[in-house]
């Protein structure tokens, strides 16, 4: 029980610190939202009016307190930049709620790809005695991790979109319009996200398997007459998978929080792209909530991984 209280306290303190820091960052960076909205057509009266409308005429500390108390009451505020109709601004909840499914589905599909390919690959790699295969996998996984994701995105677009014509780059279909067309379009950006993750996970699994293979219980099993295969699958893998769980958890946190670069390359209107454009337009309420969302996702996923890990490995619970 104290464990949970401790975790929740950490969560709250982290969220608070993150929100203060991002608020401060916004005070420091040049350019403000009023300039951004009115552009070169600004007149002093319009500036003043807009500042009052957005509550920016108040001192920063009070603005932060107003904002934070809104959050505590479940009011995430309204965007400075995006309109809902002629006179109302878009509530942040609605804005993010609309973009979140894109990022979540993209994340889900890329995680499925990662797990589906990385685990067999890692096992195959650990089990192989073929020097050539070992070397090839070494180069391939190293390479997949080294390519910057924007380049990988362009590569996937070029290969699958332009050469094989398997999808039309940029022809994103909203999930509200046609769900299956939406999922189909997401497959290729998901591949771009998954490739480096597959490389990392497979490498990780291979290393932890090789470490386990040197453990004492493997020798014991062998001396009992168990076959290599059954040792690998019945004993070694179960132990080798443990660190991989943590690692996959980290990957999950990363993709749910938003794949900023890949969303940009594939013109996906997800939270990553929203974050970038909101920073450039100084849309503080949106940026702030997105940062809190990302922080929360990371902390919660790590927490869940922690719990699962404790369940899987009794040794940790004993400690």
């Amino acid at each position, binding site marked *: 029980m104290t464990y949970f209280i401790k975790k929740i306290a950490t969560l709250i303190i982290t969220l608070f610190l993150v929100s203060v820091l991002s608020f401060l960052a916004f005070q420091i960076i040049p350019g403000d939202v009023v300039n*951004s909205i009115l552009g070169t057509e600004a007149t002093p*009266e319009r500036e003043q009016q807009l500042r009052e409308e957005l509550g920016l005429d108040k001192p920063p500390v009070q603005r932060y307190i107003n904002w934070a108390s809104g959050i505590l009451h479940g009011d995430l505020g309204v965007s400075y930049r995006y309109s809902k109709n002629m006179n109302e601004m878009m509530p942040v909840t609605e804005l993010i709620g609309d973009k979140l499914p894109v990022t979540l589905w993209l994340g889900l599909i890329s995680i499925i790809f990662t797990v589906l390919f990385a685990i067999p690959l890692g096992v195959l790699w650990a089990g192989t005695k073929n020097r050539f295969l070992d070397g090839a996998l070494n180069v391939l996984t190293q390479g997949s991790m080294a390519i910057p994701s924007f380049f990988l995105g362009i590569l996937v677009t070029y290969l699958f979109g*332009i050469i094989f014509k398997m999808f039309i780059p940029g022809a994103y279909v909203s999930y509200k319009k046609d769900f299956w067309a939406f999922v189909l379009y997401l497959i290729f950006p998901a591949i771009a996200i998954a490739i480096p993750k597959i490389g990392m996970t497979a490498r990780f699994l291979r290393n932890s398997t090789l470490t386990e293979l040197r453990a004492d219980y493997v020798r014991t099993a062998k001396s009992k007459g168990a076959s290599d295969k059954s040792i690998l699958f019945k004993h070694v893998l179960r132990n080798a998978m443990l660190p991989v769980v943590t690692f996959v958890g980290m990957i999950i946190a990363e993709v749910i929080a938003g794949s900023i670069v890949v969303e940009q390359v594939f013109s996906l209107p997800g939270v990553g792209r929203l974050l970038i454009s909101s920073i450039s337009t100084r849309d503080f309420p949106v940026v702030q909530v997105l940062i809190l969302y990302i922080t929360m996702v990371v902390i919660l996923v790590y927490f869940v991984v922690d719990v699962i890990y404790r369940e899987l490995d009794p040794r940790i619970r004993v400690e």
Partner: protein
Amino acid sequence: MKKVFTTFLVTLLAMTALCGCAGGTEASSEDKTSKNATYGGTVVVGIQQDIDGLDPHKVTAAGTKEILFNIFEGLVKCDENGDLTGAVAENYTLSDDGLTYTFNLRPGVKFHNGNTVTAEDVKYSLERASGLLDGTPLVSTLSAITAVDIVDEKTVRVSVGSVNPELIYSFTTAIIPNGSGEDSNADPIGTGPFRFVSYTPQEGIVVQKNEDYYIKGVPYLDEVDFKIVTSAETALMELRSGTIQIYPYLTDSEATEIQSEMQVLAAPSAVVQALFINNDVEPLNDPKVRQAICYAINREEVSGFVAGGDATIISSAMLPTLSSYYEDLNGTYGLTGDQEKAKQLLAEAGYPDGFDLTITIPSNYEFHMETGEVVAEQLKAVGINAKIDAVEWNTWLSDVYTDRKYETTICGITGDMTPGYLLNRFVSDSPKNFINFNSPEYDSVYANVLECKSMGERGILYKELQKILVDNAGTAFLQVPALKVALANNLGGYKFYPVYVQDMSSVYYTK
């Protein structure tokens, strides 16, 4: 005299036509194919940025106004020749003293919600935009309005405080239903050829045909989707794959790349591009130094590099398309510049070895960035050690435009139909005078402009203003870039306007 003027006009028109053809493109596809026009269909137009709002009186971004042009209309409207025609008003009269406009509303114009436009709606819209309603003018030029009176059902009288022959262009301000500007749930409702359907942040805006539009037979299309494309590369890819049919912002190299596959149309834009110089900082506060910069720039070379020769080279602040007001000052510093003269002026000003200069450029404008590279090299050739500082757009807005903390910058000013718009910003106390130009002579001539009651008189003074600005080397004007639009092969009817709009009402699919 009249004859001379006509000849001049014909020559000018011929030149414009030639300019249009220079890039292997045609100025308009209309006359050739209008017989093939069909009704119906959906067109997707790629747009570069998200819109900055749906309130026609409040939006400021050119990229938003060009779309809202399809939804909203004012009492008058601009046509493709730059002339004003009646829209919600059928016609208007101006009193002899120039202080009272009487607008006769067009009978039977309907809002997209089905209601007929009334004099109350017009009164409300003008009072809201001019600030009579709550004290804050939303359209700054309309703040000249002192009263809006309803004469009868179909007639509205607008009184203004001072004579201004250019004010009529501001009556293109949108007419919206009475009270809709304060109604918290109002969808944007106008009288334009298309009605608003939906807006999704970061994805785009969808409009559909206004069946009740007062011009019969317009528009052709059933639906237009304005879709945000994140980059020029994506736009080209989407054009090729057919997910967008129109993309109006091709650069020179993109146009060359795609013109064998689809129609590429070109026309002069309404943007005046310049190396703007901060007249207030050392050593740029010395007119000789600024003149040296003007002489150092080889405009022909700049334009050839970045616009492939499709742009119109200018040396004054005015758009050549506003031909009655434009003063050709290309002779002042020469089209190709004069390096010797530049070096000599620098020496006279006490900088024989040149100096360090920063050119601050908003990095999201590829065109200005490319221009900056060429200009920097040319400045280096006369000893001015120019360095480019690429900044993000908002930083540019606050540091350069608002706070005026910069040395030089390259950007463009988008003009409108009023020649005064491009010149009033250089009056020393104008809030838009971001170059800190300070010439008592300029100020006094501009004061005279405001006294003029006719555009003819104003024209003469406007030319004088341009000359003062350029003689003092207030800024080094460069060029008016061409607008290049990619259009799917089965589309026709796309029209260019001298103002920055995307009129979709004339666009159609060919048979």
